[in-house]
């Protein structure tokens, strides 16, 4: 089959298009941070950062970088008019308390039942680091994952059951990939928005996990 994978920017744009006006959103470090650059300019969307910011704006010009104003990935950001600062306990009260509408996270693996593995490869000599991933995974109303569907070795990152250490159990509701968008529902997986040239049978073959086709794409 002939099809082209989406670029990372294209996946970010696809995620951004699904974020509604007025949503409170946390973008995980790494790939998801790119979503900020593709938010529709006609929608007011409030970005949350673990380190106590609501209403994060785009990166500043180099001369305006403020060492006291960075995102959770420690990149310089700005504050939108109407944004607010608060301390870390209040910030995680927002996360854990279910006040974020959407959190977008990267992943090593996502299971067919929505389990998320994104914090540790489980290698015996790896130094573990978890940050806020486990809080975000259980706390946001919707947890979306943004990732390339296949590893460099061509293995599916959508798996029947995660082999990497879990970040959260049954938390992911949607996965945006470079080949398709896949919803995780109580009735199973449903794939849509396949890249041109890719059909469901081939996607099914690549993932190895039973996929249903969604009839009507939600927006």
């Amino acid at each position, binding site marked *: 089959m002939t099809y082209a994978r989406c670029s990372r920017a294209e996946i970010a744009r696809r995620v951004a298009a699904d974020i509604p006006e007025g949503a409170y959103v946390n973008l995980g470090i790494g790939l998801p941070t790119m979503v900020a650059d593709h938010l529709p300019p006609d929608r007011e969307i*409030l970005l949350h950062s673990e380190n106590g910011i609501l209403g994060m704006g785009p990166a500043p010009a180099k001369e305006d970088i403020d060492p006291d104003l960075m995102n959770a990935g420690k990149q310089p950001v700005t504050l939108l008019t109407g944004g607010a*600062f608060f301390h870390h306990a209040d910030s995680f*009260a927002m996360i*854990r308390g279910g006040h974020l509408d959407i959190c977008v996270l990267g992943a090593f693996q996502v299971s067919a039942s929505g389990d998320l593995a994104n914090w540790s490869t489980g290698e015996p000599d790896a130094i573990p680091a978890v940050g806020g991933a486990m809080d975000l995974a259980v706390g946001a109303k919707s947890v979306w994952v943004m990732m390339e569907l296949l590893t460099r070795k061509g293995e599916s990152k959508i798996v029947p059951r995660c082999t990497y250490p879990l970040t959260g159990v049954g938390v992911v509701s949607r996965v945006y990939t470079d080949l398709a968008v896949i919803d995780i529902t109580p009735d199973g997986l449903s794939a849509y928005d396949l890249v041109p040239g890719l059909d469901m049978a081939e996607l099914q073959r690549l993932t190895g996990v039973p996929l249903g086709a969604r009839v009507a794409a939600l927006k």
Partner: protein
Amino acid sequence: MINKIAESLEVALSGVEDGATILIGGFGDAGMPNELIDALIAQGAKGLVVVNNNAGQGETGVAALLKTGRVRKIICSFPRNADSQVFDNLYRAGRLELELVPQGTLVERLRAAGAGIGAFYTPTAFGTELARGKESRRIDGRDFILEYPIHADYALIKAEAADRWGNLVYRKAARNFGPVMAAAAKCSIAQVNRIAELGDLDPEAIVTPGIFVSRVVRVARPVPGVAVNAGEGRP
């Protein structure tokens, strides 16, 4: 454009269902959202569970709400007052259920709801009547009892100013339960004395970020001797 400012008290209170759990801010008269309470009475929902530090004083505010007979249960720390006759009569008549909670436990249970905490151990009330039937646990040589969050459908609170994103600042001791209740309810409704332009509230001094607030309604501060000009919406 996000705009949480409701054009009237009626609009701000729309959708409250029978049986809802409703948090009501205020300590004494400071921070008491009297006009929202009046609007709730006008709205007519019944079978309510109400959470407030007190259980009404005089014949207005929470007392007036209780008097309608539409409150099934009240959760509070200090119902008894010199002028809490409305509560007293309903309670003695067995027409109003009371859950008495120490004030710090009350606010911590609300905080737990807003912060996604499933339950917590507090030393408050251990060994007292108010611990009856509750789990206890000794931790590091000290005794605690287990308390659960108070989740709510609505919070009615009063703040000094809000912007259209729902950011709030309060005034002096009128802050009291407002920020905690705002976070504990699914839909938090703030009456404010003043609407601020977006950006006018100092981001370092916003007490309740808009994420915790669903609706805002302006109610002009009463001028002594002048009828309240309530719910006229944006200034």
